């Protein structure tokens, strides 16, 4: 989905994708970068990215078969949009992209990609960090770890 720009950041483009199947973070970044310079615009001076992937072990150390990611269709998208708009405006970002998996995710697969573009490195890095933290705590996603045929809901996030 592609959100309309909000009035306070007319030039800032925000792109969100929820993926029901495996996605390639570098392909997503390539598409995003092409979009940023599509109309002949100059490439942004600073880009910060974060990729999160599924670990091969559960929180308690057992081998993980898969991670199941539940979300709240409608609210999850709306909430990510609110978060992205707030952080874009706070840091004066030029563009934001968020990709997030839903459904069954295997060890090593990407769960999340956050990419932000800005005119300077500070806002790009800080904006990316804040966006990721906000996603983890304010966007409705729930993880269930599957191990030994049993599913266990993860309550809360791993330590920063």
């Amino acid at each position, binding site marked *: 989905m592609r959100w309309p720009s909000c009035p306070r950041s007319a030039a800032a483009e925000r792109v969100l994708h929820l993926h029901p199947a495996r996605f390639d973070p570098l392909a997503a970044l390539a598409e995003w970068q092409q979009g940023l310079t599509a109309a002949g615009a100059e490439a942004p001076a600073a880009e910060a990215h974060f990729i999160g992937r599924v670990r091969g072990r559960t929180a308690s150390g057992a081998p993980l078969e898969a991670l199941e990611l539940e979300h*709240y269709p409608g609210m999850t998208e709306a909430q990510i949009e609110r978060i992205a708009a707030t952080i874009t405006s706070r840091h004066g970002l030029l563009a934001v992209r968020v990709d997030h998996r839903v459904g069954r995710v295997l060890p090593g697969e990407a769960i999340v990609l956050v990419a932000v573009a800005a005119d300077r490195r500070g806002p790009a890095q800080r904006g990316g960090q804040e966006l*990721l933290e906000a996603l983890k705590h304010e966007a409705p996603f729930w993880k269930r770890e599957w191990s030994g045929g049993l599913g266990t809901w993860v309550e809360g996030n791993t330590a920063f």
Partner: protein
Amino acid sequence: MIRVRLFAGLRERAGWGEQQVPIPAGSPLPTPAHLWRQLALGETIPPQVRVAVNQAFATDDQQLQPGDEVAFLPPISGG
């Protein structure tokens, strides 16, 4: 009617994910806290459970309107 939704561990403990709750004519408008008790989810909403009304975070005591969608969200674990 008010649509009530549960997610993840909350849904599985309750055994249902969605209910339509009628509002009897003339009765006072409920809050999420009322519905939590009325649907036998517990006495009070535990502090780690968050409430959403119409797909935005809300407080436990917000007065609901017919047609609203209320969701009870267990602790978030995204990213």
